[in-house]
């Protein structure tokens, strides 16, 4: 009883700001609530909103775009993350400075990052295309070109997230005992063998964590898209959360938006479950 009393303030917050909205969003997702009608004027329309999530072209495109994002983002961030972690794991002068430098984008707000990158990526006056022109490449109008906009979004997201991923992996690396490498050296193992047979298996719990977190974050891509491209051009960077926001607050389709968020929840939940299942096959726990 006493424990419950102590928990009460936290529980009240949880109920008021998390559980209650979540439960009501289930009801809303089966309704035609338009945000403007009173509760008494709402009609319940069964599974119509959910059918619409897959039939509505824009909603379907946004789901497709998120998977395009994943395909570009996941492999690169994982490999680059390992690369940076290994590089930052050395004991050289000023290593703390480099570690901090890599981490700076992580603690910068997405809004600021997006606005700066919008300038850098400007087709005519942007720094990126200027640098490309130095090596004789005529860069595209990144954010206004439907073929390149998603590439730009992926690149900027990797730039921002790489610090987080590599710092976590670095911690994982430092957790691996030197003994294994000394033993391997005695046996004359190559650097390649040490990487594949010692580093990667012993890093696998950390890798598992990073991949799961990155997957979940990728499904929720929103800030950078809204600010850098506003979902355009021609819907090329429209994502699920962007569509949820637009339907809920711009098109007054609260019911549909709630259904979209629940579909997003189911997608993320299933992906996480699959990851959990795969975990048994490749993640090695030392202790």
């Amino acid at each position, binding site marked *: *009883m*006493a424990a419950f*009393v*102590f928990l*009460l*303030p936290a529980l009240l917050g949880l109920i008021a700001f998390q559980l209650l909205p979540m439960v009501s969003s289930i009801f809303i997702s089966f309704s035609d609530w*338009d*945000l*403007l*009608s*009173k509760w008494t004027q709402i009609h319940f329309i069964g599974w119509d909103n959910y059918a619409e999530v897959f039939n509505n*072209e*824009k909603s379907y495109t946004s789901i497709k775009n998120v998977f395009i994002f994943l395909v570009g983002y996941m492999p690169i961030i994982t490999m680059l993350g390992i690369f940076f972690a290994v590089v930052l794991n050395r004991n050289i002068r000023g290593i703390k400075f480099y570690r901090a430098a890599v981490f700076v984008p992580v603690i910068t707000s997405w809004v600021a990052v997006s606005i700066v990158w919008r300038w850098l990526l*400007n*087709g*005519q*006056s*942007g720094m990126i295309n200027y640098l490309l022109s130095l090596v004789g490449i005529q860069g595209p*109008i990144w*954010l*206004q*070109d*439907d073929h390149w906009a998603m590439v730009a979004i992926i690149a900027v997201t990797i730039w921002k997230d790489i610090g987080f991923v590599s710092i976590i992996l670095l911690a994982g690396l430092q957790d691996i005992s030197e003994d294994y490498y000394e033993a391997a050296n005695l046996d004359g193992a190559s650097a390649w063998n040490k990487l594949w047979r010692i580093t990667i298996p012993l890093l696998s719990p950390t890798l598992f964590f990073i991949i799961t977190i990155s997957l979940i974050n990728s499904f929720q891509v929103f800030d950078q898209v809204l600010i850098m491209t506003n979902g*355009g*051009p*021609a*819907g090329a960077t429209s994502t699920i959360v962007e569509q949820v926001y*637009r339907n809920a*607050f*711009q*098109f*007054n389709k609260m019911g549909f938006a709630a259904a979209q968020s629940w579909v997003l929840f189911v997608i993320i939940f299933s992906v996480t479950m699959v990851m959990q299942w795969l975990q048994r096959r490749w993640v090695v726990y030392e202790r």
Partner: protein
Amino acid sequence: MLKKSGVFLLIAIMVIISACGSNKGNNAESSAPASSASPSESASPSPSESASESPSDSPSPSKEPVTIKFLTYTANGQEETLKAMVEAFQAKNPDVTVDYEVVPYADYDTKLTTLLASGSEPDIYEVGYENFRKYAAKDLLLDLSPIIAADTTFNPGIYKKLAYDAFNYNGKQMGVTESFSDVVLYYNKDLFDAKGVKYPDASWTWKEELEAAKKLTDPKAGVWGTYAPIQFYEFYKTITQNGGGVFDANGKPTLNSKANVDALQWMIDKASKYKVSPALNDDTFNQPDADLNAFVAGKIAMVRFGIWNFGRFKDAPFKWDIALEPGNTQKAHHFFADGLVASKNTKQSEAVWRFLKFFTSDPDSVSKRIAAGWSVPAVADDAVLDAYYKQTPPESKKIVIEALDSLVLPPVGPKPEKWGELQSAVTEQLDKAKLGRVSVQKALDSAQKSVEDLLSK
């Protein structure tokens, strides 16, 4: 020990909760007189009588002080003017306090929607024509018709009829026009003089515009003959200039009509074929305000801008003026009307009506608005507007009024609540045509299909 502190905490929480509760009770009590007074006020036999009462009279019991809330976006940047206008109103109506809030346009819709959703919307709020249609269709607005009919001192003729009627929904006057704006052709006189080209006039069509633009374009100096962005608002106006439209007279979508296809082709050709406009892959012109800055820098000879930009070019280092926009088969000009509406749930309809009248048409309020250059009040009296005409540049300021003869309203269509989605669906196809991914015909065929789908639901 643990148990003891637990009990203590419990008591502490209970004290806090009960304190909150009693606070709420107090609030409810203190606000009760104001709300209980209002029914008697609105039930008073003739609101016009109480409105015309001179404020110096000793306050009668029916004139208990009331507070009305007012939410606005056009006052963003004109807060001082708004304050002066509200103070002028309060001086004449000492029983009314106006509690106003200014929200920037970018956040306005979200904020207002949230307030409406929670039922805590202000008594009076500002809406553009498109949102007016939406809110009226959702039955959120107070029908002012009975109040207007009862008010013998009020004459709708004081407003520009078009602007006043824009806030009439299915025969019910559900708002009062506050100001209007339109879009006209701005031109840089110095550039025209340098090339010896005649200034644009009302007789111009796209053909004359193109001929002049060809002479004015100077790629070496980075000067473009003419410019208009390729986006939804520009699209619906340009197709009207070619005799097309988003909807026909019966509200059926006609996006892929021949006239529309030709008009969109013309918008694209100006850049890609005739090269008198910045190239479509010129990212500079995708940045906010890039076109305004380019005009100030003397890099564009002719451009379509809203009249709200006059102030920006006041100190431009060249002579400029405005003209009617060239059309193809007919003229067409954007028309945007901002108005004030009252919430259906307001308890102060009498005070609200007094404020609406004062704010939108009283000479005291209108003159302040004109002096501050805060859009054009939609009043009919030319004498009042004279002060506005006299503010130059541009010299041909009466063009602003002449453009109204060929105005085109935003094509909200038969389902106002779908306006946002309609706009987004058409924009997507305009993007595709602009990027050259699909032909103009194909883009508009797809837009037609999207809009048909949208309206069939």
